[in-house]
């Protein structure tokens, strides 16, 4: 009798849920687009955008603005992914990470972001919402490298202070500058000049970037710099030592009050476990392009949170940020999103030429120094098929 009634109910009331067939990856491609520059390109704006796309048998295509090496794509990524389950990102990531060198992990990330774009578009929701969204906005800090020498030794402190004030008057609340000057205390003095210009609450971060300046501070130098930065109420000092030095940053963090941060070159969850075990950094900074993707970044954030350590993603510029913003909004312990400028400009200025690539000619909303999680599905950029075709510069 019950069976009969059930048959009646199922037949008469409401349609059954539709099953969701598996979705297979049918194609992966990478190319670049160059958008019009009006005849006189502005060095502070971005006109060239790398693109990676993942096509599926569901008729949905995912797009990321992170390029991948075409040779790697053909020899390594495509054989691993074509015909495979779009949703099995965890499995693909492990498989590809296991036989990867540094460049290869980076190679995979552009594809991973595009796969998430696909998953989000299929779901009709922003990716952050599929991962257990923690927040709807991230506070922006603008990383600014000024034109001139790489070490910024020819950049007047006042020039840095003026630009910090410009950020501030546009609602931004933080700037990061290099700590590369040949005399390390000069960067402390620059910080003092910026602090005097912006007042007490604006955040000033300094980035030593480990080995990239060509020479690594010794511990006494780092301690002297950190103490000097403390006096000017700098917010953090990033990668004061070699990126693989687990103990140096921990010692400096224990000895000073300024936050010591790092981790942008960490490629695996295991490296972050080592940072966390050794209390290497006060804040870990995975880069979702380097650590294996959005999904890998969420895992690292989870691990860091279990140690009570904030996870603030290392950033990028241009539309590559799309995946970073989704990942950051899925993290409980990520307050900030770094936006790296091509020079002293506002993020909105920098990506303005690229807006022709988007259906609605809008990238992200920035309000009071925060970037808002976009409402469009996937990675949140409504990419124009026609524009990608029109501005494509490389097959």
């Amino acid at each position, binding site marked *: 009798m019950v069976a009969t009634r059930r048959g009646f109910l*199922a037949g008469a009331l409401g349609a059954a849920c539709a*099953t969701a067939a598996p979705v297979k990856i049918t194609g992966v491609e990478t190319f670049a687009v160059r958008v019009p520059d009006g005849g006189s390109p502005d060095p502070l704006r971005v006109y060239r955008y790398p693109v990676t796309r993942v096509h599926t048998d569901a008729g949905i295509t995912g797009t990321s603005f992170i390029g991948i090496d075409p040779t790697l794509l053909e020899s390594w990524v495509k054989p691993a992914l074509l015909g495979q389950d779009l949703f099995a990102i*965890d499995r693909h990531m492990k498989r590809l990470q296991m036989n990867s060198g540094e460049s290869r992990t980076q190679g995979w990330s552009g594809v991973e972001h595009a796969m998430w774009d696909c998953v989000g578009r299929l779901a009709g929701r922003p990716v952050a919402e599929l991962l257990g969204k*923690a927040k*709807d906005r991230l506070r922006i800090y603008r990383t600014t490298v000024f034109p001139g020498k790489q070490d910024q030794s020819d950049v007047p402190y006042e020039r840095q202070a003026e630009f910090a004030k410009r950020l501030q008057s546009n609602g931004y609340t933080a700037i990061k500058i290099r700590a590369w000057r040949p005399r390390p205390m000069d960067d402390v003095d620059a910080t003092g000049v910026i602090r005097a210009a912006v007042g007490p609450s604006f955040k000033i971060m300094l980035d030593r970037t480990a080995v990239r300046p060509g020479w690594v501070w010794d511990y006494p130098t780092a301690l002297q710099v950190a103490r000097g930065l403390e006096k000017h109420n700098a917010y953090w000092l990033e990668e004061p030592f070699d990126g693989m030095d687990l103990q140096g940053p921990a010692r400096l963090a224990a000895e000073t009050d300024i936050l010591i941060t790092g981790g942008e070159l960490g490629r695996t969850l295991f490296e972050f476990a080592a940072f966390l075990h050794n209390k290497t950094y006060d804040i870990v900074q995975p880069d979702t392009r380097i650590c294996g993707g959005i999904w890998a970044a969420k*895992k690292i954030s989870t691990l860091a949170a279990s140690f009570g350590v904030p996870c603030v993603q290392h950033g990028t510029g241009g539309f590559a940020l799309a995946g970073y913003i989704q990942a950051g909004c899925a993290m409980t312990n990520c307050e900030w999103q770094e936006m790296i400028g091509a020079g002293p400009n506002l993020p909105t200025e920098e990506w303005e030429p690229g807006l022709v690539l988007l259906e609605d000619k809008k990238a992200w909303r920035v309000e009071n120094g925060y970037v808002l999680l976009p*409402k469009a599905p996937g990675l949140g950029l409504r990419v124009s098929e026609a524009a990608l075709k029109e501005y494509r510069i490389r097959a």
Partner: protein
Amino acid sequence: MLSRRSLLLALAGPVRVTGVEIYDIRIPVTQDEAEAGLMHAFNVVEVATSAGVTGYSFAGPGTAHLPAVRRLLTGQDLFAIEKHLDNGLEKWGGVEHALWDAIGRIAKQPVYRLLGGASTRVKAYVTCVWPGKEDQQHVSYREQAEQAMRLQKAGFPGMKIRAWRPNPLDDADACAEIRAATGPGFAIMFDRTAHVPSIIGQKVWSFDTGLRVARALQRAGAYWLEEPFARDDYKSPARLAAMVDIPITGGEGYVGTGSFQQCLVNRTYDILQPEGRGSGGILTCRKVASMAEAYHVPCILHGTMALMLAGWLQATFATGAEWQEVALVRPPLLPQQQWAPGAKVLRNKELYRIENGEIVASELPGLGLDVIPEALREFRV
């Protein structure tokens, strides 16, 4: 391919929780079926949303929690699971399951596909508890061996039983008899369940007892020993694990991720077993698995059965765990027999597809149960 216009229209507006209901249902069964232990009473959670989609779970927390759950969720953003957990949702894993069911239904995808989609099949092991004395001393080794063979014949690759007998070495003897019956290749797990045997007056094992039992179980061919010591003792399981070869497992009693972090830092367990509901739910289990991955520690969910299991399975497929526990099964039943009445509230004819002892992921959206709302209304207590 979506047209440009439809992509423009496809803005994902916010989805709010508009209402929560928690109630009991009782699916009609015969008295014989009820006495045999067929699962027919469930605690339902319904989460209504502004998208017009309703999420369901059968692993609810009891109607007494309804006012607090409503205070937490009504009017809130459906998708902000991390925020809800932070605000106290952790206590109500079954409610979290219903939120994910709604999310999956809106996304038109099974939840596991949204959380990494690591696998689509999982080996099921069946935890059996015989009616009668909690410590199972009235159950003959032979009966346990027969149930193991019954499961094996049905394709299941493993069984878990209690290690509660008053003389703990008796359980190792039971293991030997089961092993002789099943031959090699069938997993036999033992569960001491930490302090839980105190309900029948037993104490948590001393380290020496734990070591003697673990060694005896290892000799008898056991697959793992679960929770030999107290749950807040992060050191003794690690010490035991270092002295024996069989995995020492645990974790079902922890809420949130903090205790699991302690387990990993202390190398407490060889395998972590977050509870699919008690830990905080699907997302918490997925997070524990991520943490465990950093330590090369497998994460295998503590289980449940019948309609409740749907949420556990989504977490399991998302993480790619090797096993899913199906518990508690009352011999001589098979899991499918015990959960059969649940199909009366579903359009899908079987709750879960089992092939060769593996549970196969459903392609239905959300938690994978195509619930008939009218049936719930009809069976509501």
